[in-house]
């Protein structure tokens, strides 16, 4: 394999203005974010159920009022605050419980989030294009291993089967490939929370539609926490990037496009699914897709004790997990990683190496991600960005890797013009979307991976709930070194029923590996080669004469805090966590 020592410009000679130009060029095509048909909750139920969904659980009104709403369907708000608390000492137990009693009625559930979305959608439909002027606030809570132990005792903690949760994120840090050198950025000794001596007992997530409302609610929570003698270890404000870059992450790419669909119904009414089903009833793919490219997964992948995905079959249910105490049923593990993004380092590498490879910077960068900045997948648009496709939620995720993607029929969608873009062609040699590309690493879709079956990929999926933090660089004019040097990144959050088999598997077994699920190099966005002293990452960049091995000069995504948490149901908080053991 040819190795490239770069005949592009040396990264250190690339200025802030060069980065500004490259990013502006990459983002040129991206238009205003679409106001969008919000299809994340069923709005007009189908007239009948989709055949094959008979065994899907029904989450009735009680269940909907019990499960936290950021797990399902997710807050998806532009302004969020994460408050990491330590409980008062043992003597303050009563105060802790009193705080939880106060908090519980504020905790948003499936019911609330779904109701709000339906309301907003209805109003939007009436209004057409006008502003909707509806807002809501969501609060969710989750507890770390230490928090659970303090509230429930060591025996109950021990009954939770997930080993990473019981150990905690800090103890798993080197296993995830994080820097092990004490004092190095990324090492737990430097984390703002969840590191050496600053692990949280509890995290509160507050989400709102405006900064002002958010701060009002945060003030109220802080006041009550103060009364309870809680110690605020750290708080992080997260917000979406401004203007037309709403929904993009700091490197400039649209995020939050591909999420697994959660199976299950909201009532016994025909067609009333948690994840709306849009695939034509005559298309056999309705059995496993909710909308084009959105694979359906059984709710036990995110909620303890529910039926999980079968590891052997594409759409049939597997078993429910059994390794948890009864109070934890329908709760969910929450992974939080505060990931710093060094936008300058990322784009310096892109500018330098794209020149060496003779490719436009935007295209090279998109090959690291697997999507163009607008979100349009390389699999469907190999040569240039197409913002219409990027914004089209019925087309922007409709592709597989190993074979040609066939057109897919949709149930009548009023106002939707149809998928007019070229269908993806088989890319089994990974020339268009490389094996190392973030989205191909972390979701190989139809490709088989290290556990042998494409079905297995579905059992690895996660519900992502992240949001950027820090000031945007993308879209900024007169970019300076000072602005580039400011701290920014992604508050990465995901909900899973097994941290080990889902989040950790994706990070360690795939992103950090040059060989899994397919040979081709480390994930150049989030991969970490923590097992070797140099932490050197490499990618085999596709080229006409055979792949060229590129060495990535540094990590541009670096963990600076977080924790492993557990988000119980409302009834568990009320009846178990805020009630002293008998």
């Amino acid at each position: 394999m040819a190795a490239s020592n770069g005949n592009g410009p040396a990264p250190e000679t690339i200025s802030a203005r060069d980065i500004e130009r490259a990013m502006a060029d990459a983002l040129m095509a991206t238009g205003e974010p679409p106001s969008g048909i919000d299809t994340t909750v069923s709005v007009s139920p189908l007239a009948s159920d989709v055949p094959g969904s008979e065994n899907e659980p029904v989450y009735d009104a009680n269940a909907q009022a019990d499960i936290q709403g950021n797990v399902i369907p997710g807050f998806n708000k532009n302004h969020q605050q994460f408050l990491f608390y330590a409980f008062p000492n043992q003597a303050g137990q009563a105060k802790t419980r009193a705080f939880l009693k106060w908090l519980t009625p504020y905790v948003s559930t499936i019911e609330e989030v779904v109701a709000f979305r339906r309301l907003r959608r209805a109003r939007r439909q009436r209004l057409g294009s006008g502003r909707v002027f509806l807002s809501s606030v969501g609060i969710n809570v989750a507890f770390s291993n230490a928090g659970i132990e303090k509230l429930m005792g060591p025996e109950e903690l021990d009954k939770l089967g997930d080993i990473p949760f019981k150990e905690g994120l800090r103890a798993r840090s080197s296993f995830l490939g994080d820097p092990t050198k004490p004092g190095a950025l990324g090492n737990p000794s430097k984390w703002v929370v969840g590191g050496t001596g600053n692990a949280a007992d509890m995290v509160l997530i507050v989400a709102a539609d405006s900064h002002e409302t958010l701060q009002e609610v945060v003030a109220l929570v802080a006041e009550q926490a103060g009364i309870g003698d809680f110690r605020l270890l750290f708080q992080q404000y997260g917000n979406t990037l401004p203007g037309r870059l709403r929904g993009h992450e700091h490197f400039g790419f649209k995020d939050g496009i591909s999420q697994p669909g959660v199976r299950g119904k909201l009532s016994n009414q025909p067609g009333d699914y948690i994840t709306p089903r849009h695939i034509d009833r005559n298309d056999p793919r309705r059995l496993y897709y909710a909308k084009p490219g959105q694979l359906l997964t059984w709710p036990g992948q995110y909620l303890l004790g529910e039926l999980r995905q079968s590891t052997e079959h594409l759409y049939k249910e597997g078993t429910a997990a059994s390794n948890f105490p009864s109070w934890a049923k329908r709760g969910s593990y929450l992974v939080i990683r505060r990931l710093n993004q060094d936008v300058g380092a990322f784009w310096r590498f892109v500018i330098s190496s794209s020149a060496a490879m003779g490719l436009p910077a935007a295209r090279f960068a998109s090959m690291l991600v697997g999507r163009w900045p607008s979100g349009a997948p390389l699999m469907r648009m190999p040569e240039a960005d197409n913002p219409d496709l990027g914004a089209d939620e019925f087309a922007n995720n409709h592709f597989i890797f190993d074979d040609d993607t066939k057109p897919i029929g949709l149930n009548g969608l009023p106002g939707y013009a149809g998928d007019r873009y070229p269908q993806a062609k088989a890319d089994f040699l990974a020339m268009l979307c490389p094996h190392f590309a973030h989205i191909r690493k972390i979701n190989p879709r139809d490709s088989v991976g290290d556990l042998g079956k494409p079905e297995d990929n579905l059992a690895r999926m996660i519900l992502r709930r992240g949001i950027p933090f820090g000031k945007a660089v993308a879209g900024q004019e007169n970019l300076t070194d000072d602005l580039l040097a400011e701290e920014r990144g992604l508050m990465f959050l995901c909900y899973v029923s097994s941290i080990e088999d889902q989040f950790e598997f994706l990070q360690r077994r795939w992103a950090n590996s040059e060989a899994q699920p397919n040979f081709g190099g480390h994930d150049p966005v989030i991969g970490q080669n923590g097992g070797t002293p140099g932490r050197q990452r490499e990618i085999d960049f596709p080229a006409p004469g055979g792949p060229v091995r590129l060495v990535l000069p540094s990590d541009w995504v670096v963990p600076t805090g977080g924790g492993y948490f557990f988000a119980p149901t409302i009834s568990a908080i009320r009846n178990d966590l805020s009630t002293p053991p008998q």
Partner: protein
Amino acid sequence: MPLLERFDTPASLRDVPETSPLYQNWSDQVSSLIDGLTPSPSGGGFYDPTKLDIQFAGEKAMTWMGLPRRQLLPESRDNKRAAYEAAESFANRQHQDEYFEWRSERDASGKIRKIAFVTEFRQYYQELWNIDPQLVVGLYRKILDNDTIQKSDLEDPVGTYDILNRWNTTHGIVHYINDINTLKAAVNLCRDAAGHDSAGQNNFEAGPPFAMAPTAVDPRIAYDVNMLVRKGLYVALRDPVGFYIAAWDNAGITKPNGRPAPASWWKIKRGKPGMVLRLEYEVPASEGFVVGDLLLGGQPIEFGGQLAEHITVVIHGTAGTMTRGGRGDGG
């Protein structure tokens, strides 16, 4: 590509001088397994690269996890420890069916001292034995660092090589002994996968019947080979044909003092980087502790399977198209 003249030994091993008949014998052995599977001139299939000249299109590295998936899924999904335990519960390694076998050597207290992982074929040792049993004795001594090993240790009462000899079962590990881990089984798998007609389908739809095995390796190879062949491509195993240890992850292994264990404690004992045939993990004696004192992800290393879970095994395939007249132009 020009026709392959001879199949090379796994990882191009040169355990004996080039003049030894081993090399031709080994090639014949591989050839005899693949022979007769050459497809008709059109339509793609699994082929013999010594017989059919194909225009190279690309390589496919088929990778999988060393820990036997069958021990883990679906039954032990919530109890990994049970899977680790089951994976090494037999001295004849009957649960290690991923073309990857290992043995944990324990000290008197039961703590792991050393783990050796192998991907070598028994047939290689049999071929050597047929030439001269002393060659095998010499190799055993070298591989196991043990000069006391005798020919009589390795043979059965009538003097044939005993693959289940104690140095390859209860007292050591040198090569595959699991009945499933043979080159023949792999070749058959490729042939079956190539023969299954899934034209116009993708991996979600094809659900090929032969890919239903509960292992990781069988569906991995079957899906990939079938996927290539349904595009009209010709698929061969890349020379030197063999199963290799491709990668392992040293991250998260910590010493008793909490510091990371150096990557240098992993040793390639046979083969070469990318084509490792024998990998060993051991703490140098000077450290004063053993593998069983280390943690992986905060958990004590009690089973070799904990490391096997983070080891990647590979077999390489090449894919190509038929050129005019069935002969490539070497490009």
